[in-house]
């Protein structure tokens, strides 16, 4: 499994090293075929973008836009990666983002200013994660069903809160974070949050007992239980973590859109699952990679951007995404069987 492959010379060095895990050199040294092939795909996309729309695609503003768009779904994907690694699934992430974003932008919440919005968004996310986790870990519900129920209820509640209206944010300290003036060395604050979440996620998954237990539960829950791991508590924590990531993502979305809507986060669950899977996280659990997930998110966001710049309709985008998912899984199966 530990294949030492030197990086290809096809210009992967060009890929923006933004939001990569900290021990970049260490990662490269042990980088497996999968990570390298994802980097290759990303490099190819950047090449395509640069060729088709040389002026617009490689423009700093456009790159900032791509990374900003990747940030919201990226944070969700980090949480999702943990859940999938443990052998679970969280279908409710998009709905939780929606609920958190509208709850945090009601008139009543906005009275408490910046802190009120941030606090509410995170609290709602964690609260939904807690319900998911309790149902799954202690109510012995199948994750698919429990989070599907949460998806429906959270969307419903979000609609009830907003009555279908867009809730405009009036707190300037929140809105300012999305402005160009807030960029540090050209990096939008949203992207910095994404980078921090990614780094923490990578460290937790790879360097802590929490991450180890997550992998153990996903790899063989019965063996984990017989080895003395509290499997149920671990499951509870994992859905809490996913909820927390949704809360953070909701806050980022509020900054980005300057509003809260019940239609926010639509189909995030599918995007996050797809990004994790093409990144190399096993849907059956037992193996997860934050690096891969983040690359998956960047690939999807870049595709969307290139298609938009070339005035291609979203239906074509969807087809391309579907093809990429299939191709990624097929490639992974082949590499898995040969290693």
């Amino acid at each position, binding site marked *: *499994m*530990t294949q030492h492959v030197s990086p290809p010379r096809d210009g992967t060095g060009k890929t923006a090293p933004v939001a990569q895990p900290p021990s970049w050199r260490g990662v490269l040294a042990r980088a497996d075929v999968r990570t390298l092939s994802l980097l290759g795909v990303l490099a190819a996309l950047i090449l395509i973008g640069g060729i088709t729309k040389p002026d617009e695609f490689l423009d700093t503003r456009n790159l900032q836009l791509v990374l900003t768009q990747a940030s919201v779904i990226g944070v969700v994907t980090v949480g999702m990666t943990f859940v999938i690694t443990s052998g679970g699934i969280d279908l409710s992430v998009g709905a939780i983002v929606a609920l958190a974003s509208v709850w945090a932008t009601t008139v009543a919440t906005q009275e408490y200013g910046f802190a009120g919005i941030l606090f509410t968004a995170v609290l709602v996310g964690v609260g939904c994660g807690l319900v998911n986790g309790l149902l799954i870990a202690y109510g012995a519900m199948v994750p698919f069903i429990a989070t599907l129920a949460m998806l429906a209820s959270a969307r419903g509640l979000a609609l009830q809160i907003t009555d279908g209206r867009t809730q405009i944010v009036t707190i300037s300290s929140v809105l300012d974070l999305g402005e160009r003036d807030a960029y540090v060395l050209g990096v939008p604050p949203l992207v910095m949050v994404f980078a921090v979440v990614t780094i923490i996620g990578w460290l937790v998954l790879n*360097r*802590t*007992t*929490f991450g*180890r*237990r997550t*992998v*153990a539960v996903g*790899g*063989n829950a*019965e*063996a*984990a*239980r*017989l*080895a*003395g*791991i*509290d499997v149920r508590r671990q499951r509870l924590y994992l859905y809490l973590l996913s909820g927390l990531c949704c809360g953070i993502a909701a806050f980022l979305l509020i900054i980005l859109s300057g509003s809260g809507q019940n239609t926010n986060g639509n189909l995030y669950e599918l995007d996050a699952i797809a990004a994790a899977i093409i990144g190399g996280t096993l849907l059956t659990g*037992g*193996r997860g990679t934050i690096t891969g997930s983040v690359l998956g998110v960047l690939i999807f966001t870049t595709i969307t951007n290139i298609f938009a710049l070339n005035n291609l309709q979203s239906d074509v985008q969807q087809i391309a995404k579907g093809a990429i998912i299939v191709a990624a899984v097929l490639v992974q199966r082949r590499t898995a069987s040969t290693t």
Partner: protein
Amino acid sequence: MAPDSPLLSMSGITKSFPGVRALDGVDLDVQAGEVHCLLGQNGAGKSTLIKVLAGAHQPDTGTIHWRGEPVTLRSPIAAMRLGIATIYQELDLVEHLSVAENVHLGHEPTAVGFVVRGKAARASTAALLRRLGHPEIDPAHLVGELSAAQQQIVSMARALSHDVRLIVMDEPSAALDPDEVDNLFRIVGDLTAEGVAVVYISHRLEEIRRIGDRVTVLKDGRAVAGGLPAKSTPTREVVALMTGRNVEYVFPERAGSASTNGGKPLLEVQGLTRQGEFEPLDLSLHPGEIVGLAGLVGSGRSEILETIYGARKPTAGQVLVDGRALKPGSVRAAVRAGLGLAPEERKAQALLMLESVTRNVSVSSMSRFSRGGWIDRGAERGAARAATRELSLRPDNPSVPVRTLSGGNQQKAVLARWLLRGCRVLLLDEPTRGVDVGARAELYAVVRRLADEGLAVLLVSSEVPEVLGLADRVLVLREGRVVHTAPAHELDEHRVLDLVMEGSPAS
């Protein structure tokens, strides 16, 4: 077909899975019209062999002759076309379809490509059910609503709906009442009278006496006896073949005498019971002592170990370590108190197959290498290496994936996990299952040494010589009940086998 060639002849069949050789040169020949019984403990290779015969597994080497002609069974369909039908232990029926639909599944009567749901299928199904002596089963009934015995009949009807010449039955009596077993045997008799061959798998010796013509005994993936006469071979000989040694194992000498006198017991089991699995059990285990539980499959031995370990919740009774009662049904409490289990199904119950040896070894002791949840990977690697070296685990590189190890070394990885944890009571469930003969002596030495260093060991094994060779004291189990307790040196293999089989009609 030449008159003297058997219906089926398999020779030199081998099949390996990662880490284990499931079949190691097995020969099997079956004559038309006979009941050929396959005997063997769990893991002896019976299932793998019948899956090869059913076309579900491809053998690595070996040849199969069918009516004198060499054949390759590439798929279950290929086997079915030849006339080989298999009735698996877990019935493979579709619950939400009717009896007739299940019987004709995969070869539905069709008209212009559409499935005909009509009378023809029901009528032919009814005829098959009559032939099987169960005219009361309605072909239109949903299979999910039938009893287990009736479902088995449906499964058999499905087999007979093809032009079948050989039926493999995998423990068909396991789910049946005695009178249903009688009916099953009558059916088997009718089939063989028609010239159909039956390969019958069971570990109930009395059944094999009743209906079997010949017996092949499998052990550790080898046919240790082929084509013995089913009715006249002494029970003791058959059981000895199933459970006994086929090579002389070397059992390590005890370092000293058993240290049970005087000292307080480390582990006490008081009246531990699980309804329907085993009767109240009392047991005490001292440091340095190895106690063996001897019994056949179904005697409740694994259930007892798992209940002591907290993996199953007892209906009554308690487990004490150092005189303190453990929380019942809590693995974590047991592990914290110093218990460690090496379960029977290593891959399903103990190992994280995607992970390295290091991570498999360290998984129960992570708090020792971590501060605030942060793992010191250097310390982890070092400790895992020390633990695996102590057990001479091969290869001497704990960063390799655990699935690349042989069965014996995978078992060592599990032992190393508990060694590292500082476990004081080791529960071993069939520790040498799937372990190569050569590696067993090494494992025995490891267990002996651990006991000499002060661990208490509770050993479950269906291999009588293993229990007698390792244990200081032996409890003989039969059908969930301890029927005899004695120091190991007062017992011999034959005595234990008699006790294990005691009261069964065959002995």
